[in-house]
């Protein structure tokens, strides 16, 4: 325990004095806050003179402004925080030949990797909590609404999900820092995985779904069964991407009007109208039930990733040739 604590403390000091990390987090905080405040201003304009709808506070995070919403932004660029925190965690110490020295001190070997992972998670939590607090503060001033208890709970769940999600990327990058000896290689490998999941999985899911179950436009309209199957396949495949898992989960938790994580819902026009007329927000607990499988999946892939990393690190030959 003592070893973990000492290494954790040093890693935190390193993160706080790392220009690289401070720059990337400052950038992400800045852009995130700009997005949310632009949304806030437009909400302010639109809702002038109207009664404030329920959960207007959460709109700050979920409304799509000019380009994308804050939630989408974090889903896409948040992983960079995790990657920057972890890509040189182990191999940096290998290159500087401090790893073998560290391991010849009276500490358990896993303290090193545990402390590095935990300090990364702590930094992620600090950055995310800071962003959400800044945006909330701005939102209170801009819209003039104080978030209600349920809104705060939803934000807390959102924060937890985001920390888990970015920790997954931290795990990926630490894994590469264990496998590769060069920090440049591990950085590139982590970025490659990020690009793969952010672009190719959704593209590939679409392509694969079209190949398996093509939707044909015929004179009689579209084949409903095929379209449904197509959408199902696309969804199943993209669920392999942590990004989809995360964005499905967080939009559901932050948008109580959504009752499913599914993007495509087939319904008739009448049905749609009647639904929207009598639409009520989903209670917090129900929203939570919907996203719990997603959260569990994110935790599972994060743990899996860290577990693999842990095992490889514990078995690695210590020698630094």
């Amino acid at each position, binding site marked *: 325990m003592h070893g973990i604590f000492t290494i954790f403390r040093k890693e935190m000091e390193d993160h706080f004095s790392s220009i690289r990390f401070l720059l990337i987090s400052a950038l992400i905080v800045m852009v995130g806050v700009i997005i949310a405040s632009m949304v806030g201003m437009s909400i302010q304009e639109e809702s002038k003179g109207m009664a404030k709808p329920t959960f207007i506070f959460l709109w700050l995070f979920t409304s799509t402004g000019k380009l994308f919403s804050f939630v989408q932004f974090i889903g896409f660029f948040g992983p960079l925080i995790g990657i920057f925190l972890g890509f040189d965690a182990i191999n940096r110490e290998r290159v*500087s*030949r*401090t790893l*073998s020295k*560290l391991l*010849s001190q*009276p*500490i358990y070997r896993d303290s090193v990797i545990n402390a590095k992972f935990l300090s990364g998670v702590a930094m992620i939590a600090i950055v995310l909590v800071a962003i959400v607090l800044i945006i909330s503060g701005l939102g209170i001033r801009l819209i003039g609404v104080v978030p209600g208890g349920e809104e705060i709970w939803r934000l807390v769940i959102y924060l937890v999900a985001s920390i888990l999600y970015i920790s997954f990327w931290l795990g990926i990058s630490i894994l590469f820092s264990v496998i590769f000896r060069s920090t440049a290689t591990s950085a590139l490998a982590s970025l490659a995985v990020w690009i793969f999941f952010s672009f190719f999985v959704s593209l590939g899911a679409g392509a694969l779904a079209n190949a398996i179950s093509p939707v044909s436009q015929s004179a009689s309209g579209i084949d409903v069964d095929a379209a449904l199957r197509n959408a199902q396949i696309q969804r199943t495949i993209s669920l392999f991407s942590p990004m989809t898992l995360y964005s499905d989960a967080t939009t559901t938790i932050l948008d109580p009007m959504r009752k499913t994580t599914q993007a495509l819902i087939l319904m008739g026009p009448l049905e749609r109208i009647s639904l929207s007329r009598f639409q009520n927000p989903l209670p917090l607990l129900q929203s939570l039930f919907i996203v719990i499988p997603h959260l569990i999946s994110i935790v599972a892939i994060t743990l899996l990733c860290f577990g693999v990393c842990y095992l490889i690190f514990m078995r690695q030959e210590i*020698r*630094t040739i």
Partner: protein
Amino acid sequence: MENQTIIEAEGLTKKYGHQTAVNNLYLQIREGEVFGFLGPNGAGKTTTLLMFLGLTEPTSGKVRVIGFDPTRDPFHVKEKVGYLPENVGFYDDMDARQNLQYIARLNRIPDRISADRITESLKVVDLLEEVGKKVGTYSKGMRQRLGIAEVLMKEPKLIFLDEPTIGLDPDGTNRMLDLIHSLSREKNITIFLSSHLLDQVQRICDRVGIMIKGDLVAMGPIEELAKKKLGVDKEHYTLEEIYMKYFKEA
């Protein structure tokens, strides 16, 4: 006291796949001596040290270091023993004191105690004047001496030094050897040092062991080995000569 055994290896063997790095090593080191573990590159010296510290598991055989089995109980061995790896590394963006303090904390030495110990060990290795500089600016010799200071800070009874003079200029080498010698005499620390530069370490070792391709081919005081191998009571013998005899036989 002199005869207390501090390291004992019995049939210690390490194989990497088909290659035998260390073969059936029998060794006893007594408290207070300076033991030179000599041999060419790739002879298995570093591997032996790693097994002594529990950083690598032996394929077979037994070893006890200061009364503990490093394979089963590496924690206690690492707590009591100082180890200077070959080409030791430091956190280059921290100064000497910060580097040593981190290691002290990992050794559970409280800051108020380590502050004095750090000053004292930096004094021993003559680095007190450079204490505020970032270690990245240190020369090779200074880094090596800082490594010794780091080891001394733990106040160990036994120190392992892996190629302590490698990469040092002749002046740095002499300083390092004098330093090691004085540690043994003044602080009564047992020193186990590995080197492939035989003539250098010759003057400070009480006993030497010669490793060739994983086998310990000879062990004893240098004069004894010389008598045995060179036959005559030569006035001048060098370890190099003795060693070459063994090397040719192997």
